[in-house]
């Protein structure tokens, strides 16, 4: 909304400069963002008007605010009409068809005949230019001027173009076509109110006039519409037809129901003045009593309680009087007021409290904290998120924040079976899907950083999965690690340790379609699956232009956040020293560590800890074989072990391995 500084001064007599005026308005909530020289000795003030204050969408409304701040009187333009023509109801009529009453609670018509259409006077043209409007002709300019003065959108019809010379208010027919004055063409539906003549729609109510009845240089008789249309109905029509206008913007916010006839009179007076002609006597008005004043009350004690400081009730009286709120009753405890009809936003006590706070000044509210102490809690997911970030960043991983939207084909290879959501109105048409896996997003980040080596990435975010029970948003941790699957697994295990998770971790070989076959594993905690780890398949690596396929892991944060913590109880330190025995085997390639581990654990007695030492491929081994070395840490609780004890265990383990893995040998 652009305001003219000169206009506001005329309406108030305020002695402030443009910037001072802008600052004082900003302090009461009318946020003036820019003040510019508009030429013609005027300044334009670009204001951001919040939706609760439609009364500020016109100069008279802002003038009321300035008057309240500066303790001035508004100089509203005086209206005096010379109604020299015949009675208006002998010239035209309005019919509200059944079904249209709700959308149009009030409709007024004035008729001016014999006008001479031409340019407006300079001051009108300058004023319109200062507020960013294009002058058109002396009739249309008046409707615009009055709109920006009184916040009443008006429409002037060329009366001779109206079939039957009269107005019918009806809901549009299904598929009815309408060509707006601005050149847009649209198709209407029965939820939309139209202004029609005997044959056709001549305006989409509150949104746009029709080109068929436009006022132009040949216009002689003018039918002037001033109405109060139902805000929701105007809003729906403007949105459906994508024809939002200055008019619909105002109607949908709610204009002053008491201004309808007054604005019409003001416009008629100016048309007579600028374009001549003869004004028909009286006005057609379907509902002169639409504006019903409402009341609101404020308890002084409640006001003090909400604001946190005591405001003198006498000051509140003055503030309300300045705002034009009429006192209905006043006691020592409370005041009841009747706001002007342009202040439809003042209905409740809280609304009045805000008026007190605004006009007294937000600076007056002290900065005091009197609320009692309260203990905050750290929710398990908050704790887990923090520990994961700390641990992984210390381990060399960089946290990423990526888009929740992805191409529809990205996630299925990493979340098979999860139904994903697609948005109906994506901003980026290539990314309509909400991700069901975080892994592809990190692979994309890997591509962004393709000139880097040894990249380690992670992200904590939501997956979005459609289920029978509704949307599921599992919180997930994704990891990408150039170094390979064992490092990604190591990071996951480090997290369990950092989180003090208790429970037994199980591992099963399990691939996802996005993994290199045979490289995948599923981890579980006490039988509950919580992580998938694998090496990205060549196909997925190629999708993200990666030469080398990194490892990916995806962890269900809910499982590791809510897992019971280890009890931190002291275990006595061992009293007797242990003995270590190392074993190095050559085994066929197909033999995985998990099987060796299982074999060793079942064959070894006195095993305190089993440690994987190394995996070796190359010189000294038969093709198709690999070297696997491990260390057994043996210990007895009640005595020092002897070499003989240890050798016996080692021999039993070696024998078991050789028996279980045919072709294997001791190295």
């Amino acid at each position, binding site marked *: 909304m652009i305001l003219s500084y000169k206009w506001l001064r005329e309406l108030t007599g305020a002695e402030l400069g443009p910037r001072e005026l802008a600052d004082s308005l900003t302090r009461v*909530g009318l*946020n003036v963002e820019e003040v510019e020289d508009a030429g013609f000795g005027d300044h334009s003030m670009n204001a951001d008007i919040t*939706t609760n204050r439609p009364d500020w969408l016109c100069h008279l409304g802002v003038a009321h605010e300035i008057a309240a701040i500066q303790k001035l009187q508004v100089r509203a333009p005086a209206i005096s009409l010379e109604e020299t023509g015949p009675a208006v109801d002998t010239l035209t009529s309005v019919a509200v068809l059944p079904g249209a009453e709700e959308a149009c609670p009030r409709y007024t018509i004035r008729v001016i005949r014999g006008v001479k259409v031409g340019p407006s006077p300079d001051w009108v043209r300058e004023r319109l230019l200062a507020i960013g409007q294009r002058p058109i002709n002396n009739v249309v300019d008046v409707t615009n001027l009055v709109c920006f003065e009184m916040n009443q959108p008006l429409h002037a019809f060329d009366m001779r173009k109206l079939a039957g010379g009269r107005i019918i208010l009806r809901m549009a027919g299904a598929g009815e076509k309408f060509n707006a004055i601005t050149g847009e063409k649209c198709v209407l539906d029965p939820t939309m109110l139209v202004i029609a003549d005997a044959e056709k729609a001549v305006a989409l109510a509150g949104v746009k006039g029709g080109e068929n009845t436009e006022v132009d240089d040949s216009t002689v008789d003018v039918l002037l519409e001033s109405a109060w249309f139902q*805000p929701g109905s105007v*809003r*729906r029509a403007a949105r459906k037809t994508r024809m939002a206008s200055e008019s619909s*913007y105002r109607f949908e*916010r709610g204009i002053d129901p008491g201004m309808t006839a007054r604005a019409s009179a003001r416009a008629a007076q100016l048309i007579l003045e600028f374009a001549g002609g003869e004004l028909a006597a009286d006005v057609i008005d379907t509902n002169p009593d639409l504006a019903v004043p409402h009341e609101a009350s404020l308890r002084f004690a409640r006001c003090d*309680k*909400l*604001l*946190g400081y005591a405001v003198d009730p006498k000051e509140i009286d003055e503030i309300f009087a300045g705002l034009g709120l009429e006192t209905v009753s006043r006691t020592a405890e409370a005041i009841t007021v009747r706001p002007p009809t342009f202040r439809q936003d003042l209905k*409740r006590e*809280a*609304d009045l409290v805000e008026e007190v*706070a605004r006009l007294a000044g937000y600076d007056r*509210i*002290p*900065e*005091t*904290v*009197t*609320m*009692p102490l*309260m203990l*905050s*809690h*750290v*929710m398990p*997911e908050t704790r887990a998120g*923090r520990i994961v*970030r700390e641990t992984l*960043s*210390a*381990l*060399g991983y*960089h*946290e*990423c*924040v*990526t*888009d*929740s*939207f992805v191409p529809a084909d990205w996630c299925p290879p990493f979340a098979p079976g999860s139904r994903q*959501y*697609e948005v*109906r*109105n994506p*901003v980026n048409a290539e990314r309509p899907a909400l991700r069901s896996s975080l892994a592809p997003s990190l692979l994309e980040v890997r591509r*962004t*950083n393709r000139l*880097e080596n*040894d990249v*380690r*990435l*992670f992200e904590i975010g*939501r997956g*979005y999965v459609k289920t029978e029970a509704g*949307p599921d*948003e599992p919180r997930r941790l994704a990891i990408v690690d150039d170094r390979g699957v064992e490092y990604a697994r190591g990071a996951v295990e480090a997290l369990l340790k950092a989180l003090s998770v208790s429970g037994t971790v199980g591992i099963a070989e399990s691939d996802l379609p996005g993994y290199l076959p045979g490289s995948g594993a599923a981890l579980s905690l006490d039988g509950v699956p919580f992580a998938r780890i694998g090496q990205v398949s060549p196909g997925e690596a190629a999708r993200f232009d990666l030469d080398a396929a990194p490892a990916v892991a995806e962890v269900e944060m809910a499982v590791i956040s809510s897992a019971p913590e280890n009890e931190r109880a002291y275990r006595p330190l061992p009293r007797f020293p242990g003995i270590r025995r190392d074993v190095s085997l050559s085994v066929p390639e197909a033999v995985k560590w998990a099987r060796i581990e299982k074999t060793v654990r079942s064959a070894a007695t006195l095993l305190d800890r089993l440690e994987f030492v190394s995996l070796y491929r190359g010189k000294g081994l038969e093709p198709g074989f690999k070297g696997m070395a491990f260390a057994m840490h043996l210990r007895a609780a009640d005595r020092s072990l002897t070499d003989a004890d240890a050798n016996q265990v080692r021999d039993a383990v070696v024998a078991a391995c050789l028996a279980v893995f045919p072709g294997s040998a001791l190295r």
Partner: protein
Amino acid sequence: MPLLDEVEAMREEAEKAIAGADSPDALEAARVAYLGRSGKLKDFMSRIREVPADQKKAAGQRLNEIKSGLETLFAGAKDRIGAKAVCARPLPDPTLPGRIQPLGSVHPLTQALERFAGIFERLGFTVRQGPEIEDVFHNFDALNMPDDHPVRDQADTFALEDNAILRSQTSTVQIRVMEEHVGRHGGGAGMPPIRIVSPGRTYRPDAVDATHHYSFSQIEGLAVDRDVAMADLKGFLGMFARETFGSGVKTRFRPSFFPFTEPSAEMDVSCVFCGGKGCRVCKRQGWVELGGCGMVDPNVFDAVGIDRELFTGFAFGFGIERVAMFMLGVDDIRRFTENDLRFLRQF
């Protein structure tokens, strides 16, 4: 020559021998010769009876002094010779770069979010999360944003199927937490106070440019108690601003409008770069807008079933990206989701 003179001569001789020793062997030889079991000092000890009776005590003391003096010298010489032996190996170069496993990083947006959440946690606010896929009730209706009202313009949403939408603000979490709280305690006299902050992602179908993105993060706060006043809101947010931007920062509250608060305010902080004088960062305003806040609208209390007479509350919400961009000097919001390591490593 009297015994004591002999002793002093021996001391000088021993001191020279210790000082002159330049290897562990030479030093050990000196030690054996003078301090050893049959060394010269021991010998003098046994000859102490030659001294006249009235001087015996003084002579004994002197011998002991010499013994401990020589032992100290010997220990010093041992260190000197030992150090020399170590020095035979090359010295470390203390100016070489340190060796360390490469460190990763926490994303600057998370850092900002955690920093803000952490301040409020210390003030008694509990961090709470809520769903991003929402329904119209939690995203709009309960927040006093009725259908067919222009307040919904500011918050166009991404639409999913079955009337589900992506939340356009984290205020939805306020509603969910209050509903849960009322479900547990009722919304009347027995209800304990609420103090939460909810950081998270929000979505609005805006075109992407240097300062806009369709996905962004907010942190939202809510306090509900028997006597919460706007002065408390200013108090808490004032503490937050000073903890975040430094004790010298000034705050300013301007009247504004949000459907879910009344009275409502925009909170500005004085520009930390120019101290409020006006510069490029604050667009010569001297102030930077931090976010919106206000007293919980009674309609919101009605929607969740909290007694609007007994309880009052305040709420606030900030956009994380905007504040982080301001604090870190980041000039393009897209940097945050691009995740270029050269960017991430800076934080």
